[in-house]
């Protein structure tokens, strides 16, 4: 097969001693920027662009890509340790990762996350290697109606994220949609919900809201519960890592489901964040022990991590095959590509194959080295939790403030963060679920644009969501999953009835 041959050449390129050294350096920088909220892969790449002029283009792109892979690994660490998601796609990892860390199982949570990450990335890389052109065609089938259908499917995962009170779940979700609607109306081009304020024109940033609601909200909750001013005792060590790894194959269903969701969503149209939520929601819906989710179950860490990183890797595919960046980091890399005189887009595969295959080869090598590297850091990261709470707590607040500011370089965002901190605490106490709210915030804008664009296309007819094959099927699935709890309840009742006579 041609792909195998090309891949071998790519691997050979990536494994040359010089490129290997470049790759490890990139992974280090990437993990570092990924760990710090407010710094992301984009910053790491931007800072090293000048260095890349002294490297041959293939080494240069390996360096930049390695930063990207490293940053993907790093994003999860703060979610697990402090409930502060370093990147938007790590939000769902907080749901169970942080409760695990709170129970003193930070080491297990991190190991689970990294291994799941590795698995997701590898599945996506396989697809990237052997099916890139086919997948690119698949991507093209997704227009606005299909995008909307996928959003609906993601929303059906809401059902699993709901709180105790149905009304409050609805209210929290709608508040998320309202926040997402602030800004400009794409169809009419008019400003809405800005009330004449420049600050509101930019809308509410997802990551700022999440740092406030989760990170700061958690700090407030913890002090209110009267946690002692000392660190959590953490079980750690190499043995813990291996013991955890041995438990992972049990979740093979979640692994496969998550990887598939991730690959699909990463390519088109949602991206890593919806993928992680969708995977988490479905894992909970289909789990035997759904009540354990949110309290620190390993499966709740596996699901979002697998999907997010499968999506993160497969997001490179649109850039290589179609020439548009799937993420800000990719946008920066794109600028670099053009600086080296490469034209991103469908011709890259044909005109610069050595470059593309070098990049794909580097994904294989980078993830293999990366997982070993971050796993060896696990005890170190986990030991941070041993620091006295009275030092850790104000440091967390400081880091949160940096993270909130750096998203858009706006002072107002730090204020929003404090505000969201209080909202997060109040909502948690009053049983308003936060998860559907942030999911609505991140998807609301995308879902609404897709819906309105579709209606413009069909001249106002809602039939467009059902008479196109993919849109129809996905919408049908969404409805099915939305009523899944009802279906299972019904099934259980029928079973009971069937058994009842036997018992009687």
């Amino acid at each position, binding site marked *: 097969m041609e792909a195998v041959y090309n891949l071998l050449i790519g691997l050979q390129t990536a494994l040359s001693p010089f490129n290997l050294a470049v790759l490890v350096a990139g992974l280090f920088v990437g993990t570092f920027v990924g760990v710090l909220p407010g710094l992301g892969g984009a910053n790491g790449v931007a800072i090293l662009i000048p260095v890349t002029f002294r490297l041959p283009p293939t080494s240069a792109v390996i360096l930049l890509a390695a930063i990207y892979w490293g940053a993907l690994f790093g994003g999860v660490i703060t979610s697990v340790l402090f409930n502060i998601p370093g990147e938007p796609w790590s939000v769902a990892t907080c749901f169970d990762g942080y409760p695990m860390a709170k129970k003193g199982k930070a080491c297990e949570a991190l190991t689970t996350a990294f291994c799941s990450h590795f698995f997701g990335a590898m599945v996506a890389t396989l697809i990237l290697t052997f099916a890139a052109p086919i997948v690119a065609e698949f991507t093209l089938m997704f227009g606005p109606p299909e995008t909307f259908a996928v959003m609906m499917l993601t929303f059906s995962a809401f059902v699993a994220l709901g709180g105790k009170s149905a009304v409050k779940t609805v209210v929290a979700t709608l508040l998320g949609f309202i926040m997402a609607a602030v800004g400009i109306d794409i169809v009419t081009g008019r400003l809405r919900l800005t009330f004449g304020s420049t600050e509101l024109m930019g809308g509410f940033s997802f990551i700022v809201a999440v740092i406030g609601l989760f990170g700061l909200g958690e700090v407030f909750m913890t002090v209110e519960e009267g946690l002692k001013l000392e660190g959590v005792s953490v079980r750690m060590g190499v043995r813990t890592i291996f013991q955890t790894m041995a438990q992972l194959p049990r979740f093979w269903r979640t692994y496969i489901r998550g990887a598939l969701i991730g690959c699909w969503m990463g390519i088109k149209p949602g991206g890593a964040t919806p993928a992680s939520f969708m995977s988490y929601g479905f894992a909970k819906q289909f789990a035997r022990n759904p009540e354990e989710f949110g309290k620190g179950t390993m499966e709740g860490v596996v699901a979002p991590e697998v999907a997010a990183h499968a999506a993160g890797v497969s997001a490179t595919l649109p850039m290589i095959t*179609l020439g548009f960046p799937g993420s800000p980091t990719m946008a920066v890399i794109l600028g670099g590509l053009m600086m080296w005189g490469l034209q991103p887009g469908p011709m890259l595969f044909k005109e610069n194959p050595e470059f593309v295959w070098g990049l794909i080869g580097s994904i294989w090598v980078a993830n293999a080295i990366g997982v070993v590297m971050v796993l060896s850091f696990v005890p170190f990261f986990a030991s941070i939790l041993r620091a006295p709470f009275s030092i850790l707590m104000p440091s967390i607040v400081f880091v949160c403030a940096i993270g909130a500011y750096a998203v858009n370089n706006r002072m107002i965002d730090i204020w929003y963060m404090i505000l969201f901190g209080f909202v997060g605490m109040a909502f948690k106490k009053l049983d308003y679920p936060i998860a559907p709210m942030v999911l609505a915030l991140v998807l609301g804008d995308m879902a609404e644009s897709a819906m309105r664009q579709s209606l413009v296309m069909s001249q106002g007819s809602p039939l467009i969501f059902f008479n196109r094959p993919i849109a129809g099927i996905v919408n049908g699935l969404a409805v099915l999953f939305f009523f899944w709890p009802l279906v299972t309840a019904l099934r259980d009742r029928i079973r009971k009835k069937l058994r009842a006579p036997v018992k009687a």
Partner: protein
Amino acid sequence: MKKQQRPNLRQWVLLIAMAVGVTGLWGGIAAAAWQPTKSVEFVVPAGTGGGADIMARFIFPLVEKHKLSPQPLIVVNRSGGAGAEGFMHVKEKKGDPHVITLTLDNLFTTPLATGVPFNWKDLTPVGRLALDWFVLWVNAESPYKTAKEYFDAVKREPSKFKMGGTGTAQEDQIITIQMEQAFGLKFIYVPFKGGGDVAVSLVGKHTDSTVNNPSEAVGHWKAGRLRPLAVVDRERIPLPEWNKIPTMKEATGFDMGYTMLRGIFMPPGVSKEVDLFRKGTETPEWKKYLADNALKPAFLAGSDYPKWLEEKEALTKDLMKKGGLVK
């Protein structure tokens, strides 16, 4: 948040700054070259991946490679309100030489369409980097070989053909309306968030045509997925391959021209003597970049630039009024 009403301190500082400025003028040092003392915020009033963003992200490594600035340019996207957020931000940074913005035509269209209190005269015009052409594209598998054939088909079935474009009441829709009025057509205009999405939607046959900029569609054209029908300008694009595309007049008999600004602005009250961009446009990398993306090399600075902007603004306003796009 009422942040607009800052104490008078700022006004005082401004007064002093102005006094110093006037004194400086007498001393003949007002035209002192731009010397940033800290990293420069390079504001892109658009999202990541669009034309303005990609150009800014290209300029960043260019500046680094040729040491064009003593301090790095940091690209910051402020895309809220179709760019209004970015413009207002730069406007508020009065007298700060560490803020630069790279704008497209949304400099004119956004305030007109949204009523945001902003006009380009609120900023310091530094230079025009290039102009962007518009090309009428259809899917390569569609039966239309010329613009005339396509327009005839659209005319036969009004409100059936979908024109994809970036945003609402922005340049793509202005051109669409111009075409509709000139040829008596009716398109369904479908707004997307960025030029890349627009091109992909055409390749995927979710729309029937686009007026994408060359850079947004060139890859798909080379891959044989899209077909250019006409350039929306009075002259052909003087680049190999591109020069085979006829102008609107050649293709349809109707003279039509629209090019888009890619201009540099700074906050009000700073010196516009920034030689960084002039030097940048003379580098071989820049020239290759323009050729690769089929951008019109049209560097313009000094007093001619505001004059050109004035004309461009009047033209845009006129077209938007005719199209019923002014709020």
